[in-house]
């Protein structure tokens, strides 16, 4: 690769209060190369993208475009340098059509040029080999299609650099394959593709060059020559070695990163007794933009982990809320230990041993300005022992909190610290400590490791496994297939509000789930 880089970073540093998100990072991006930036959550990938896209300003270092030092002060300047960015979360307007979204930002007050836009749209559709209806409202498209619109927009003016920030996190396996084809096409046309991911497998599959980030630093790089000389196993081991030095001290984290899908649940579930949780025919009514449940039913036995797979937005949130009692089902029944609980509220279900760990740790799970201690008793306010005649016994509440902090290894300055000041992993521990008390019988997890770093991901998964081994019945909703394969006994797939085919977690389950996620096979 003797080609001169089209875009380079030289010693880029970006600090946020308390953390160095990017520490002296130097990288080169070349035309016709798919360059993977690999790292776990919190490694500084997104900040780096923010710097290139003009959303963040570096504190030190410089950016070179075709060898010339440039300053990227705004998204507009980034586009002006031929850098197109597709962000992790879709940044398009759902109420506008595909075409209108593509016209957005191409003028300030002038008339819209529909004809010209349509021409370019067809050119790009052909170049990317995708087919979209230009007049469809964006909100009506699947996430994969929305992403195709994003890629089109990023390449609109013939941009030479395309940044894709965790583009596969919302896609089905089929969508990921299509994205791979699009990227290879673009590479063939001489585009420098920057592909950000935290999944080792994708890095190997798509990358010509892999740069590994950890804790804000560039810890190593595998160039095309070395990569092509290695098989997947060797490359994986090499990346793990780059990330952790010697892999031995970080075995669990390395495995979590590699996503090798090791089945750890070998226990045989006794299904001869009565199921502890029986859901039948659950349906909900959805507001705009939500996916309702459609006749969902399953049985769950003690000690069993039922995995719920599926692309985000296929009814998982409603399922979790209906089971937890935060949302009433329009029809259907839920029986817990033989008792109908469909009409009862959250408190009653909690007293019966049903627990829910939400995916919205900050909005729904905790009250940020409240102390760790208060958050730990949030769902039991008024309970005897911690309150007397409605008066808080702060000594006991704080004592209770200190116990929990020790037991769940919550890293907090004190039990009085506002929970919003803790890291994501520690907030998740607060939630786990609150929900996984002694009286729990059934636990519902909604995306329990979303946004956590490797260490906390591993800890959370260990908790789930330990709980199940101790006899807890667990519903595990996750968009990470590896996680489900590691933890679940059976896996069902949510697609457009229906729970399709609950299958045993055995060899070859990935392919079947992949098909179910696209609704191809019921």
């Amino acid at each position, binding site marked *: 690769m003797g080609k001169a880089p089209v875009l380079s970073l030289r010693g880029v540093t970006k600090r946020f209060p308390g953390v160095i998100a990017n520490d002296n990072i130097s990288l080169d991006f070349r035309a016709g190369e798919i360059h993977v930036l690999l790292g776990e959550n919190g490694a500084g990938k997104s900040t780096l993208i923010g710097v290139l896209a003009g959303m963040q300003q570096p504190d030190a270092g410089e950016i070179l475009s075709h060898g010339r030092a440039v300053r990227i002060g*705004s998204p*507009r300047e980034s586009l002006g340098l031929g850098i197109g960015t597709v*962000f992790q979360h879709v*940044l398009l307007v*759902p109420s*506008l059509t595909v075409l209108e979204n593509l016209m957005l930002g*191409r003028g*300030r007050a*002038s008339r819209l040029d529909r004809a010209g836009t349509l021409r370019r749209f067809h050119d790009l559709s052909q170049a990317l080999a995708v087919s979209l209806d230009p007049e469809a409202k964006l909100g009506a498209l699947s996430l994969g299609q929305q992403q195709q619109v994003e890629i089109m927009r990023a390449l609109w003016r013939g941009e030479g650099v395309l940044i894709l920030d965790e583009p596969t996190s919302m896609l089905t396996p089929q969508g990921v394959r299509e994205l791979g084809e699009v990227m290879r096409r673009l590479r063939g046309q001489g585009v420098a593709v920057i592909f950000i991911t935290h999944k080792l497998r994708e890095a190997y599959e798509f990358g010509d060059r892999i740069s590994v980030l950890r804790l804000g630093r560039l810890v190593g790089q595998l160039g095309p020559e070395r990569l092509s000389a290695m098989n997947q196993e060797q490359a994986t081991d090499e990346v793990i070695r780059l990330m952790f030095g010697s892999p031995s001290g970080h075995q669990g984290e390395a495995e979590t990163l590699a996503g090798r899908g090791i089945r750890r649940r070998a226990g045989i579930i006794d299904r001869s007794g009565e199921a502890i949780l029986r859901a039948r025919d659950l349906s909900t009514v959805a507001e705009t933009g939500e996916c309702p449940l459609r006749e969902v039913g399953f049985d769950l036995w003690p000690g069993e982990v039922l995995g719920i797979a599926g692309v985000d937005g296929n009814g998982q949130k409603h399922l979790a809320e209906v089971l937890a009692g935060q949302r009433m089902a329009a029809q259907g029944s839920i029986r817990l230990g033989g008792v109908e609980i469909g009409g009862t509220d959250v408190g009653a279900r909690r007293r019966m041993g049903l627990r829910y760990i939400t995916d919205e740790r900050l909005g729904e799970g905790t009250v940020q300005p409240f102390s760790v201690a208060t958050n730990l008793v949030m769902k039991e306010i008024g309970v005897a022992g911690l309150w007397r005649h409605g008066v808080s016994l702060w000594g006991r509440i704080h004592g209770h909190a200190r116990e929990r902090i020790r037991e769940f290894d919550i890293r907090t300055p004190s039990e009085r610290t506002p929970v919003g000041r803790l890291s994501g992993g520690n907030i998740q521990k607060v939630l786990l400590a609150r929900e996984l008390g002694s009286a729990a019988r059934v636990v519902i997890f909604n995306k329990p490791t979303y946004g956590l770093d490797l260490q906390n991901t591993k800890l959370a998964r260990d908790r789930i496994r330990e709980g199940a081994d101790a006899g807890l019945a667990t519903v595990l909703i996750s968009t990470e297939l590896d996680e489900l394969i590691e933890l679940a006994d059976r896996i069902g797939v949510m697609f457009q509000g229906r729970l399709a085919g609950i299958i045993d977690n055995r060899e070859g389950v990935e392919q079947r789930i992949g098909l179910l996620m696209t609704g191809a096979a019921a």
Partner: protein
Amino acid sequence: METLLTPAFVTALLFGAVTAGVPLLLAGLGEQVSEKAGVLNIGIEGMMLAGAYAGFVAAYYSGSFLAGFVAGGLGGAGVAALMALFCVRLGMNQIVIGIALTLGAEGLTALLHHFQFSRSYPRLDAAPALALPGLAEIPIVGPALFSHHWLVYLAVLLVPLLAWVFRRTHLGLNLEAAGQMPAALDAAGIGVLATRTFAVLATGFLAGMGGAYMANVGAGLFVPFMTGGAGFMGIVLAMLARGRPSWVLVGSIVFGLSLSLTTAFQVAGVNVPTDVVQMLPFLMVMLMLVLFARHSGLPPALGLPYVRGSR
């Protein structure tokens, strides 16, 4: 009732409806621009009042209605500039600032008026009416609808113009994106704050013109607090119209009629207590809200300040 429904009464009623409806139309269209871009402009009542005062003073000293309307628009835009500074640039709470601006404008205009004119309320000459040839000769309806000041026709023409802007121009897309998904607009390289600032200033200008029309044409004089909730009705209109200028027009006709009916009843000496008659337009507001505002279809980012990089 038969004695009421004379041709003269109907003509007066309709004429009054136009006079009362035009400020609502301008305010409603203005608020719609703001809300589309994600700024809930509660300060619009203050902008109307500032426009009414500035417009009256300019027209009074220059003797020109045109100067009055321009000054009115600028007066409204002046208050809007404060709104843009505090709410858009500094990201402060739109409701609190909006209320403060309304109260501030009420106090300031009353105070200025008192210093200038003491307790007298000088009147302007009657506004020149532009009778549309042909149309104005239609019996009953003609003199009621087609013999008005030119600003009335301009306000009505603004409806298709805004609809065109919303649907067919980049400005329309930018406004919509600023209210629906501001981060998308930012990522597309258009400044969210600039777009919203423009929207708020446009709102102020339109509301100010509405206020000036109220003072200079509708009443012919300025009285403190004279807008009497017209700005708030404009907010309701914008809310009910769900982004469509034509619905603002429909709404302002309905509200204008009910306002006009109030006056007409009083003039005709109908034997109903004045307080009850004066409640009519507000009952109408409540009725419309209850009937049509269940799903207001407001932009998701309405009322939320935009900060790049946060979500």
